[in-house]
């Protein structure tokens, strides 16, 4: 019994350390300028005001950045689902020469960090005329070796008899892929989609480098500029942080089971 109490006490302490900063972020984002500049003022907002949010939206292209982030995240996720599922199907169901070597090559690219290739990638985008375009933002994120690996595992778990029955009925490989196998790996697709979306929504380095005007800036890059522009207006900065985290929190709450499954899968890989 004492052990159980100790366990809950420690977990609660940890949870407070995790949730506390988020609540502080929210509280700051609801505090007015007068209270912010008074060092002796109460900790919690008094009165509660949505002023910082209004300033965020009026003096800063917040909605533009949010729309860019959302659009890029959705398209990037769809592209990754498409490129990963097609490759996963080839690697799990089609026999062709060099398939093992090619799969190893795919896995090896997981070892290449964006940080290492960022300079030539930028030079390449420049010569293609794609600097500061949506295509430039999207193309490097349109593929994921991790997604190929994950969906290949999902396809391999499906019995081969499914395909054979469909072939006997006169279906071709495209029909088998689209109509027979793909609908059966829904949970794996959903798990990967949640991951791809979160990664894109939170991405910083590549958008920082490739987007050069506000027209193509995404939310994380916009937020990082917010501090420079408003200096110590922490209530506005925290309003921006809160607003940027909110959509991902909503997604997380609804898709928690997929997120946890995906992380557990990541661990299994080792």
């Amino acid at each position, binding site marked *: 019994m004492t052990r159980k109490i100790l366990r*809950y006490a420690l*977990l609660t302490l940890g*949870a407070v350390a*995790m*949730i506390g*900063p*988020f609540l*502080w972020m929210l509280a*700051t984002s609801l505090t007015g300028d007068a209270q912010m500049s008074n060092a002796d003022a109460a*900790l919690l907002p008094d009165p509660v005001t949505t002023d910082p949010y209004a300033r965020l939206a009026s003096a800063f292209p917040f909605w533009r950045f949010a729309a860019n982030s959302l659009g890029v995240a959705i398209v990037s996720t769809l592209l990754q689902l498409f490129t990963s599922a*097609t490759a996963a*199907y*080839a690697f799990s169901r*089609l*026999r*062709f020469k060099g*398939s093992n070597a090619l799969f190893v090559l795919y896995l090896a*690219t997981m*070892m*290449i*960090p964006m*940080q*290492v*290739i*960022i*300079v*030539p*990638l*930028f*030079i*390449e985008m420049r010569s293609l005329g794609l600097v500061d375009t949506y295509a430039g933002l999207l*193309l*490097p994120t349109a*593929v994921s070796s991790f997604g*190929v690996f994950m969906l290949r595992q999902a396809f391999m778990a499906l019995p081969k008899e499914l395909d054979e029955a469909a072939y006997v009925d006169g279906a071709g*490989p495209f029909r088998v*892929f689209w109509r027979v196998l793909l609908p059966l790996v829904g949970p794996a697709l959903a798990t990967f989609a949640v991951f791809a979306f979160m990664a894109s929504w*939170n991405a*910083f*380095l590549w958008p*920082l480098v490739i987007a050069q005007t506000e027209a193509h800036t995404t939310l*994380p*890059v916009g*937020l990082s500029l917010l*501090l420079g522009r408003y200096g*110590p207006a*922490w209530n506005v900065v925290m309003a921006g*942080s809160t607003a940027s*985290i909110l959509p*991902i*929190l909503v*997604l*997380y709450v609804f898709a928690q089971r997929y*997120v*946890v499954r995906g*992380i*557990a899968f990541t*661990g299994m*890989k*080792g």
Partner: protein
Amino acid sequence: MSAQRRWRNAGVAAIFLAPSLVTLLAFWIGPMIGTVWVSFQDWNLIGVPSFVGLDNYAELAKDADFHAALLHTLLYLAGYLPLVLILGLAVALLLNAKLPAMTLYRAMFFLPVVSSWVAISLLWKWLLNPAGGLVDKALGLVGIDGPGWWTDPTWAMPSVVLASVWKDVGFVAVILLAGLQAIPKDLLEAADLDGASAWRRLRSITLPLLSPSLFFVTVISLINGFQVFDQVWVMTGGGPGGASSVVVEQIVRYAFSYGRVGYASAMSIVLFAIILVVTVAQLRLQRRWVQYD
């Protein structure tokens, strides 16, 4: 399988592989090779690249700023890695129980993991603000005069480490929790019946059986740690006075502020080589401590 069917299969495979393969080659494998090529050039992006052989690498070998950035990256890892592993393990052990509300607790520890580095870095920059930040206010209540955190050269890197550990502890915990849940309960119960203490059970049963998960999460954390960038860029910008400058931050600075892309690419290659060597060394060393059944 007939020759004709095999050929047809190859054609079908090519169609299915084309979207991913073309993208991989064009935007990952190509640039990786490109990094090597650019690292041998003197190039400011405006003129024509001129081949300079290993000059960039020779300059790196003498560049005190780059050495400092490497050192800071290692210092970051020296603080971040043990803390995130020990705290992550502790949280995983606490969460590994069939009790009410464990899913809720797990979700709370995971909140920072799904948030962006930028938002979290801004939040911690505010929490650790020497002028009115919550942490210094709390320290003041117990009579401690808090340090200048990210405004102080000595405390800038510890500030970054603190924010990073806080963000990643849930990630480590969830991976280790999956490993813990795969450990057969009867083993631990048998040891309990034999009178083994909790500490003994942890050391002799849980940790050895958890070692594959611990190994995996160590490798991943090290690889990610060497590439630390977002939190440094947002919290300190590498400052004050270069006190928290790290490798990737220097790459970005040299390539996109100073326009020296050849020199920046040489840094990228050095970073990649370090990550590769460390990862291979870990794969070699794993035989010493990782137990696969």
